[in-house]
């Protein structure tokens, strides 16, 4: 399906109840703003991940980076008038939910072993040079 066709589909869906003007046509400026927010979110997540030692905070930071990627998907989908971008967001949310359950469970277990949330408590898992 061509992008023009997709655009027409959007217009048709949006105008089921009658002609409307609230859907703007694709616009590079809108995309740029969206991507800028996405990059900011990702940078905050990355810096947070690299600087914090608290495992819950680190986990939240990874969530931030994940959502930054999701936002970029939405932005590009809007730019190309393609629903795939939004479909991906649904998938990312689903996977993130599952992952959150798993990761928080792991954090709880790790906390129980060492009575601390610091990731440095586990640095001995590295492999030494023989």
């Amino acid at each position, binding site marked *: 399906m061509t992008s023009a066709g997709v655009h027409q589909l959007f217009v048709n869906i949006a105008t089921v109840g009658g002609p409307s003007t609230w859907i703007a046509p694709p616009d590079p400026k809108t995309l740029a703003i969206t991507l800028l927010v996405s990059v900011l979110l990702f940078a905050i997540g*990355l810096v947070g*991940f*690299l*600087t914090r*030692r608290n495992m819950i905070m*680190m986990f939240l930071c990874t969530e931030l980076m994940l959502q930054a990627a999701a936002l970029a998907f939405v932005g590009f989908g809007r730019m190309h008038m393609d629903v795939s971008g939004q479909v991906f967001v649904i998938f990312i949310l689903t996977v993130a939910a599952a992952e959150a359950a798993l990761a928080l469970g792991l954090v709880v277990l790790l906390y129980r072993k060492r009575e601390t949330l610091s*990731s*440095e408590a*586990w*640095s*001995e*898992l*590295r*492999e030494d*040079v023989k």
Partner: protein
Amino acid sequence: MTIASAMHASGLTPAQLEMLAKTIPDPAPDLSWAGWILGLPAIAAVLCLLLGFLRIRNKLPAIVTIVALGGAFVTTLLLYQSYEGPVTIHLFEWIRLSWGTGPGQSLIADIGLHVDGLTLFWMLFVTGLGTLIAIFASEYMESDVGGDYARFFGAVSIFLLAMGCLVMGSNLFLLYLGWEGVGVASYLLIGYYYGKPTAVAAAKKAFIMNRVGDLGLLIGIYLTWRTFGALDYATIFETMKDGQYVLDSGAMLIPFFLMLGAFGKSAQIPLFTWLPDAMEGPTPVSALIHAATMVTAGVYLIARCYPLFFLHPDALNTVAWIGGTTAFVAATIGMLQYDMKRVFAYSTVSQLGFMFLGLGVGTTYGAAYHVFTHAFFKALLFLASGAVMHGFAGQLDIRKISGIRHIPGFKVIAWTMLVGCLCLAAVPFSSGFFSKDEILLVALTDHEYGVPFLGWLGLFTAALTAYYTFRVWFRVCAGPVAYVPGDDDHGHDHAHADDDGHGGLASASHGAVDPQPTAHAGHFHPHPPRLAINGVLLILALGAILAALPSYLKAADGSTWVSSMIADSSAVNGVPSIPAAVGHATGQATGQAAAHHELLGMDAHTALLLISFAIAIVGIGSSAYFHLLNRKAADVLKQRLLASPLTSWLPKALENKWYVDELYDGIFRYPVRGLAWLLARVDALVLDGGIVNGVARMPIAMGRLFQPLYNGLLQGYAVTMAGGLGLILAWIVWVWMKRGGA
């Protein structure tokens, strides 16, 4: 055989021949029961192994073996009784390969027995002596009861099975099977005391040296099959008689390859050094395998394939020269050995040389007769020396035992040993005299095949033989009573504590258990043999004497029991393509050709008798002087010889066995060992070190390189990932910019 010859005349292939053989009823009586001659030892071998696994703690393995071998002997006697003429007994099919219908396009070897006079003659003494030696061993090996007793008798049974297969097999494949079988049995028995490094080395040496000969035999068998298109004796000799073969260079080589096999098994130059070392095995083994039976397999091979030895004009001459030289060389070595068994081992090599001399000069009768007499007196000598060893805790050094004929209980050994020595020294009118002189007579007087030089060398060797044989007897059996017990490294006396009167003292003589080893000689009591050993020695002495009977009972035409036995076999007839050889061989068999020869201006027989008397007197007399009357004179003579630089090489060379072992070490063992060392280095450095370990070292090095990244901190990993991502991004941007952007 009659069917085979009929088939051959009609020019049919072996496959068609077999089909016809089924349609024509065989007129000969069914002799397939003769298969029990092989079957009984086979059953005994299996039973002995079974008993060994069950760890039987009595003499049952010996009884099983003796009964089976005795049964085989009786079966052979019955076969001899019902024997009417050469016959091939077909037992069952074995190898049948065919890739066409023409000649030389099939390979057929069935399990069958070829029975003729030669076979019966050989099997009679093989099974008979085998039984006697098994009886001897039942007492001799009793210290191993419950341990390796079953293994010993199992191996003896395997040996008799293989020997029977070798002698009775109806084709060359079966002969080869038995040939390898006796080699394996010999290896097992020489290495019987596998805890002793010398025994293991001797077993290996025997096996490896025999492999050289076996390779020759195998090539010889292949060439025979290639030339005659068959492997069974009947067809081969029929084809040869009809002249339906091509005498190419391959066919001319047959006798040389066959004789290489014979030289290996019968310990002739250049493959003789294994036999003296084989004396590391238990004494009954030395008697059974390395004196009476196995080593005669080479003589049997040449006698059986005698027609093939006319394929090349020089073949028999080669056999004669090798035999005569071996006889002389081995006798010289035997003169200066101090180990009783080794003296007899070298005498065996020497006597085998006489047999090959006989074969080489065309008297298969003399060779077969000498095999027969030698089997008795040499088995007797070995068993007698074994009995001495048994009684003196393994002592074999003739310098350390003296005068045992005065020790109570050892008289039977001393006197039976004397009988054996008389026969070995070929004193006139003993059995050894007749058989040896039959060979020397032909060697000296035969116009066509005789080699007079070898005949005279043989007579000189006979004098040496008389000397060294009686050297043993005068040292060990005669003279003042004195002895030093051996260190009993074979553990013979372990079981004697309960069955003789002085058991406590006997067991105290063990160095290992004796708290005061210095009290050794004082506490030692010789352990006289009992019924089994004495009985066997007496029977063998009787046999050694009676082996001369065929010569005393010579028929009017000069034929004897032995010559009539082998007269119908391929050893004598079956060489019609060479007329001279036929007349010669058959003439020898009936004794006619020898009758009108002359030697030194008188009748050859009379001359040889006088010469034999002379050399016996010289040999035994010098031996009596040096080793009985004036024992110091022997040492003085040796010192004199050693003192002079001109003669000092002689006793040294003789004591060191002419340095043949060292020569072989230099030519074969050390170069091969050096090569092995070199290859081991190449393997360790290039193959293992360079290729295998080198490949393994690469991932290790890579791991070393990146290992510092794994510092155990999550942030460190994250930085690595982010950095990598950044690098990839930078690269993409760089490429994008390079392309002009946008």
